[in-house]
């Protein structure tokens, strides 16, 4: 029995991979994402200059052989700044999404699995939270509790879990009455084990798709806040903050705006294409076309 489920599982993933590998834009997205992650992990080793290294005499210079992407007004290497900024941007993207994932999956799985009144109460809470204008609330939180990076993770994660909870709940509702769950029930497994071992793994497809699409939206939210000066604070840096600095000096030194802008846009582009590709690949309904 377990083997049969395993086999079915791998074939679904294999099928998805075949579909995905035919989608060039999605593969491009995947490649960009891998390069970004590797670069971010290795930044302290491969960055051409130190994060704080500055050459005040030099000031802002256009891209050159020594500084591929130029230097900022303090003579700091722009490529290095963008690499370190990308670390923070990606970290916010991944950690905040992870927070959203954990809350959303647990909430949705519990509501969908137990159903009835518990479900009604839990989903009503989600409805109420949905109606709140969260962008405004995040700004409020940052004002009240200071601009703390940890709080930023939590605040963004706390916004993004709602959709995840809805997706997981509807999946679980559909799964709950399937034979293999009944079988697990009659084998005497505890409810918690059934949720963990049988329900959650079977909801992975839509969850993966939504996760891939949440990461760029979280990164965008962070950049948005940092741009306004309400997100990441110096000496930390992120792409949003670099764009903010770039805008101040864009008349004289446009590359200080353009390069971080390209980094952010390219990443969002890649992640969105990957997410779209995964949705097409993991959705069995798309196999018809």
């Amino acid at each position, binding site marked *: 029995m377990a083997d049969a489920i395993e086999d079915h599982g791998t074939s679904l993933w294999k099928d998805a991979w075949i579909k995905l590998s035919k989608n060039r834009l999605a593969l491009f997205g995947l490649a960009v994402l891998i390069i970004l992650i590797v670069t971010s992990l290795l930044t302290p080793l491969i960055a051409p200059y130190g994060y704080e290294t500055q050459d005040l005499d030099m000031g802002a210079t256009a891209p050159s052989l020594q500084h591929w992407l130029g230097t900022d007004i303090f003579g700091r290497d722009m490529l290095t700044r963008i690499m370190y900024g990308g670390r923070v941007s990606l970290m916010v993207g991944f950690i905040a999404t992870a927070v959203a994932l954990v809350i959303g999956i647990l909430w949705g799985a519990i509501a969908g699995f137990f159903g009835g009144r518990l479900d009604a109460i839990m989903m009503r809470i989600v*409805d*109420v939270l949905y*109606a*709140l*204008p969260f*962008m*405004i*609330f995040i*700004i*409020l*939180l*940052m*004002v*009240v*509790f*200071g601009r703390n990076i940890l709080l930023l993770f939590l605040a963004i994660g706390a916004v993004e879990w709602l959709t995840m909870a809805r997706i997981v709940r509807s999946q679980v509702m559909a799964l709950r009455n399937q034979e293999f769950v009944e079988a697990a029930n009659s084998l005497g497994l505890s409810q918690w084990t059934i949720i963990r071992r049988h329900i959650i793994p079977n909801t992975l497809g839509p969850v993966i798709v939504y996760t891939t699409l949440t990461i*760029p939206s979280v990164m*965008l939210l962070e*950049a*948005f806040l940092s*741009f*306004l*000066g*309400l997100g990441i604070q110096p000496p930390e840096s992120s792409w*949003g903050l670099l*764009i*903010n600095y*770039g*805008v101040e000096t*864009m*008349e004289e030194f*446009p590359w200080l*705006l*353009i390069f971080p*802008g390209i980094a*952010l*846009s*390219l990443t*969002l*582009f890649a992640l*969105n*294409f990957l997410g779209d590709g995964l949705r097409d690949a993991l959705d069995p309904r798309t196999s018809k076309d």
Partner: protein
Amino acid sequence: MYRFAISRLLQAIPVLLVVITVTFFLVHSAPGGPFSADKAVPPEVIKALEEQYNLNQPVWQQYLSYLGDVLQGDFGPSFKYSGRTVNELIAAGLPITAELAFYAMLVALSVGITAGVGAAMRPNTLQDYLPMTGAMIGICMPSFLLGPLLVLIFGIHLDWLPVSGWGDIPGDKILPSITLGTGYAAYIARLSRGGMLEVLSQDYIRTARAKGLSERLIIIKHALRGGLIPVVAFLGPAFAGLLAGSFVVETIFQIPGLGRFYVQAAFNRDYTLILGMTIFLSTLIILFNLLSDMLAIWLNPKLRQEIRGTN
């Protein structure tokens, strides 16, 4: 339908109460009161100020009296802009932000629907790929990047358009409206393409074709109404996004609207202004979500029946 509208309106009341309560206690739990400013203020001045702003009462009493004021539409005085009330500031900023949002929506709807419907009419051709790639770029180009780039190109290099202000120089409304509208144009293009593709494959469209109607007439008379439902449903969330986007666009273009007030209030720690504006903006967003839901239901007979069935 009316019953649905009323029940949704009633549901909005607890949501608003939650908003008011959470915002109030968040702001009041902020470390460092509003007057713990840089300068040392004499104690008697602090006491007078506290009395003026009711800060010497217990928090729950402040909460109840604030709630009472808010229910009567009074958000109290601003902490930082002395002598001005939050209501006055909102009244000053609202028309400007509303105008900006209106133009941005105009840009978004006209460009988005044209591109999306055009793409859906000839799927998987250049007429589909070009606008959809454009839409993807639009989605990945946030307003805080697009705005400065437009300023750099059209304001500084080409020197065609003014780069700041609102209604001071002719043409100064163009760049902010495009900056704010582009992202939504991109979403609307994708939504209307998807909606139209689905509708165009339905039987009643085939019937219309079989009757020999021109493609133009089929789109306008039969397909648009159903195909644009996803766009209509998106209008509510889009409105919330437009307000948030106005924070950035009004900051970039130095437009004295609600968004700029809100960001400045956040920087100045102007607690009453933040509190009042949060409640005001939340109310607006909740109302617009409600309106766009109602509009989507009114356009979609299937949903209308479902609601009748559940009531």
